[in-house]
């Protein structure tokens, strides 16, 4: 069972939940930039939540099924079609052997995830299938690559899920972190500033531009290179914040103003260049409550998947459906 890449944008990679445990050896966890999208797709095609998917960056791609496959696209809003017929995102669909799937460039968001029932089963390296390009692990995909897929779990097509909105920036929650005290006199101004995700950004981090002066650690501080974590807001030499993402380095010498809470990181990752964002400092208790709610949300995703309600006029092969058998009851959207 496999899927062939006929065309794809630069930076298209296989991603799962990454490889924790190698921090002490200088290798960051990596994994999907938008972990929520990974979980959403897994729920749609019936995969375990940590199954590997294809991560598409801004550009889309073209793929051919070598066997009958069931797929779903989550994350960035990208138009998709099968053999020229439009297919909705956040909906499971069939790609028959030989059929060609076209995915267009993102209309909103950055990272799209193409999931296959059974998962992408490229060989694991150090316990994960995720490409970690800065570390030289794995590679970006290119035309001609064939991706093996695992045995598909049972599941239907036309199952749908309503995504958590996160493609248009907005307010990002942060907590104070180990070095925030060096920016004590600037935290208010930081929270009052409107930032624009500028063109510099990748899976290691994204740059946040703003009008007005930059930010600087107090007192000509000489900070020793120290552990960094995804979400850290690093202030570079010119005073511009960089929010670190999944493939960030494991240590860094730039001071960190605050840290984005993990459940708001998908919103940072999905902010396309030009997107406006603001940051708000929350207490640790508030952050933990948000994380607990996020964990509950992830767990509940498989139960939120429901058959898509389709208007009969939108179904070209209506006569092929067995209306009498009660398969279509008119209440599909109420399924659990």
């Amino acid at each position, binding site marked *: 069972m496999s899927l062939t890449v006929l065309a794809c944008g630069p930076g298209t990679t296989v991603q799962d939940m990454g490889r*924790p*445990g*190698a*921090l*002490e*050896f*200088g*290798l960051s966890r990596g994994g999907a930039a938008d972990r929520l999208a990974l979980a959403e797709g897994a729920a749609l095609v019936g995969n375990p939540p940590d199954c590997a998917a294809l991560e598409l960056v801004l550009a889309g791609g073209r793929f051919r099924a070598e066997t009958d496959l069931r797929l779903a696209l989550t994350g960035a809003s990208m138009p998709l079609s099968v053999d020229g017929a439009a297919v909705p995102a956040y909906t499971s669909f069939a790609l028959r052997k030989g059929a060609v799937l076209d995915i267009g460039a993102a209309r909103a968001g950055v990272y799209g995830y193409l999931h296959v029932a059974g998962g992408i089963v490229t060989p694991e*390296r*150090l316990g994960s299938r995720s490409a970690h390009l*800065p*570390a*030289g*692990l794995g590679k970006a995909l290119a035309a001609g690559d064939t991706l093996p897929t695992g045995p598909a779990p049972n599941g239907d097509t036309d199952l749908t899920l309503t995504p958590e909105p996160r493609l248009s920036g907005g307010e990002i929650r942060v*907590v*104070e*972190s*180990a070095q925030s005290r060096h920016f004590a006199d600037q935290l208010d101004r930081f929270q009052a500033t409107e930032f624009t995700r500028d063109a510099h950004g990748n899976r290691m981090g994204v740059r946040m531009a703003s009008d007005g002066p930059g930010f600087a650690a107090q007192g000509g501080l*000489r900070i*020793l*290179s*120290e*552990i960094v*974590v995804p*979400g*850290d807001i690093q202030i570079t030499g010119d005073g511009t914040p960089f929010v670190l993402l999944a493939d960030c*380095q*494991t*240590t*860094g010498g730039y001071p960190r103003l605050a*840290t984005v*809470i*993990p459940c708001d990181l998908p919103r940072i990752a999905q902010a396309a260049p030009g997107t406006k964002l603001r940051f708000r400092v929350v207490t*640790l208790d508030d*952050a*933990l409550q948000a*994380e*607990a709610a996020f*964990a509950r949300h992830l767990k509940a995703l498989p139960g939120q998947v429901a058959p898509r309600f389709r208007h009969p006029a939108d179904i070209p092969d209506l006569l092929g459906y067995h209306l009498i058998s009660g398969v279509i009851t008119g209440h599909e959207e109420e399924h659990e």
Partner: protein
Amino acid sequence: MIADVTEKPTGFPTLRRMGVAGVLVSFGDHLSEPANRAALAFRAAIEAEGWDGVEETSTSLVSAFVRFDPLHLPHATLESRLSDLLTSQDWYAAPLPEGRRLFRVPTVYGTDLAPQLAEAAAEAGLSVQDAIASLSTVRVRVQTIGFAPGQPYLGPLPEAWDIPRQTALTPRVPEGALVVAIRQFVLFSVSTPTGWRHVGQTAFRLFRPESDTPFLLRPGDEVIFPQVAPEEFQNMRNDADGGATWEAIG
């Protein structure tokens, strides 16, 4: 930078939060021998405790880091356990980790392979010859692994090597590059831009993702970078270990 403090720095150790799922235990605000030892030993002690909810641990130059699941292991519980562990012994006097090794990594100094040797020697106030004599015989210790996979920070180098980083970045040095600044070496595990000066070139691969032991060096290991002639470089490259050898030291 290195300061050879022999007693505890005041105000340390500190326990600080990193994001919502991390705690950083720091043993100083500058690199010193005792603080580096303390960080390594303390991290090993956390691992030995095996606390449920701790997801991974790591060290930087003078800190131990704990990443944990705060929904499973409350901050207050972890922080109180860490505080108790901190007071259980004098971590600054702790021995180095066990299972350490001494590596000898053959290195070409200067030439086209490492074009900033002369510049670095001048910064250090040494002739090129004296610079090579110093760098190729000093026995340094892996103080931390970080930045890139398997990549060591090694030191301390003699006083003369307390030279600053360059103000401009070198656009790219190759994998295996030996670079110097602030009384430390970094041996690069990937090709990367750097502000450190490129004084030597090795054929040593630090990160071997295809191997059962993907990361060769560990904090506490010691390394010497003996000089070899540039003509040797091709032979070194043909050797899986780049001509390096190693032995156990305790």
